[in-house]
């Protein structure tokens, strides 16, 4: 089951440049929340702050409170512990190139010291089924490299890899921006099914995609959260002029 995310007064910096200003918002359990906004508005930085991936960049730092379920992300818990409970899917599919499909999915567990082979087999099968890749790869998942799949398949492989560690939250940073329309459609369908088990936060460049997959949407501009509301409301009767200008295509 997914858990909710509560963000309060989140500020983030790259060196001396501030990238996020006092973000306060919520993502509800077992719902999809979309983050939209023009390039450079801090969308990616925001989701990367949720699982502390932000701090893997030299000189990057963040302050504020992020709660994921009962977990206080910025207080005391080690970053690696947090990331095990929060799955992440990146913009460009990034399977481990020298590993087989099976090893890619099992990587998160194996590298964290989980070695029960029978359980691993089960988890890999379940994760690949969840990400709708099982039927396409089940016959050769031990022999073929993850890098030999098509772009859309690679992205679903990355989703399976993220799901295998059984996270409560799935963060997706523009997961379809490098994919063709058919693969994009598959991943969007997937998001619908995954909502039943996980809380999803998806960054997207594509406003139609946000309206298709997410119940809630946050609009970011220049590092600030301009508006956060039900997706329907954002796309039909936004309360902020800037949101309206963005969704009607006046800028961005």
């Amino acid at each position, binding site marked *: 089951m997914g858990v909710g995310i509560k963000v309060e007064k989140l500020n983030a910096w790259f060196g001396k440049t501030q990238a996020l200003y006092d973000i306060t918002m919520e993502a509800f359990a077992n719902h999809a929340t979309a983050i939209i906004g023009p390039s450079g508005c801090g969308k990616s930085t925001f989701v990367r702050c949720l699982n502390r991936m932000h701090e*893997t960049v030299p000189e990057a730092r963040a302050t504020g409170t992020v709660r994921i379920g009962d977990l206080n992300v910025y207080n005391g818990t080690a970053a690696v512990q947090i990331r095990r409970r929060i799955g992440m899917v990146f913009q460009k599919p990034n399977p*481990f190139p*020298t*590993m087989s499909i099976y090893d890619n999915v099992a990587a998160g567990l194996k*590298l964290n010291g989980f070695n029960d082979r029978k359980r691993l087999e089960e988890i890999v099968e379940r994760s690949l089924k969840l990400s709708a890749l099982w039927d396409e790869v089940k016959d050769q998942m031990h*022999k073929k490299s993850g890098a030999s799949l098509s772009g859309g398949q690679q992205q679903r492989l990355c989703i399976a890899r993220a799901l295998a560690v059984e996270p409560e939250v799935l963060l997706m940073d523009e997961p379809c921006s490098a994919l063709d329309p058919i693969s994009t459609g598959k991943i969007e369908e997937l998001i619908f099914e995954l909502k039943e088990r996980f809380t999803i936060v998806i960054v997207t460049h594509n406003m139609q995609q946000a309206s298709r997959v997410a119940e809630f949407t946050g609009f970011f501009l220049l590092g600030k959260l301009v508006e956060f509301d039900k997706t329907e409301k954002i796309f039909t009767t936004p309360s902020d002029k800037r949101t309206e200008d963005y969704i009607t295509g006046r800028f961005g």
Partner: protein
Amino acid sequence: MNGLVTCAAAGAVILVLAPLVAVFGYLVYKGMGSINFAFLTQIPKPPGEVGGGMANAIAGSALILFLGSLAGVPIGIGAGIYLAEYGRNRFGNVIRFTADVLNGVPSIIVGIVAYGLVVLTQGHFSAVAGGVALAIMMIPTITRTTEEMLLLVPNAVREAAYGLGVSRWRTTLSITLRTATSGVITGVMLAFARVAGETAPLLFTAFGNTYWNWKIGQPTAALPLQIFTYAISPYDDWHKQAWAGALILIVLIVASVSAVRLVASRGMLKGAN
């Protein structure tokens, strides 16, 4: 114009390959006749006596190269990992510069250093001293190629591991290094092949030996040393054996590099780059 450039490139390839083929061909022509069972299994006969072989030198070379690799490969790869993953700073630049300078140090000077470090403290020549000299020569090459190969691994691959909650050291060893394995192995084999034929650093470290020796603390024969000694000797039979030794040396280097590559490629997957 296209044809002209193609011809020029093909010509350059021939110019590059010609010396290699010529050297190998000449070695086969001169050395093949002296290679026989005795040459590969016996130790040298005293000067003037015909026959004998270089078996002890072949074994000695293997021993010294093993000792050199034992020290040089882990240190070189470790330093390469440091430079690529943690060395984006001033200290890293100092190491990089040092490695490049070390790479250009004449091999005889490396031999003198190993002499001072090991032979003088031990009190006598030894296989260990030879191994240390070869290790010093291997380290900069391995360090720099390991660094380059690790930097070729896209950052997205590291991020994928971090995103799964894998710690940094584990990511470096199990993901980044593993992704770069084939390139790192190429670097190691390059360094290995280079030092396998070195004579100068062994002159006053391993020193040479006309008998069998398996003790790493004792003077040990090595193929390049043996070739050198035989080549400058006044005996006809020794000259022939020097040619044969040179041929064996090249064949063994090519064979060991190929073997490592073959074993390494077994573990690789289809479709992986």
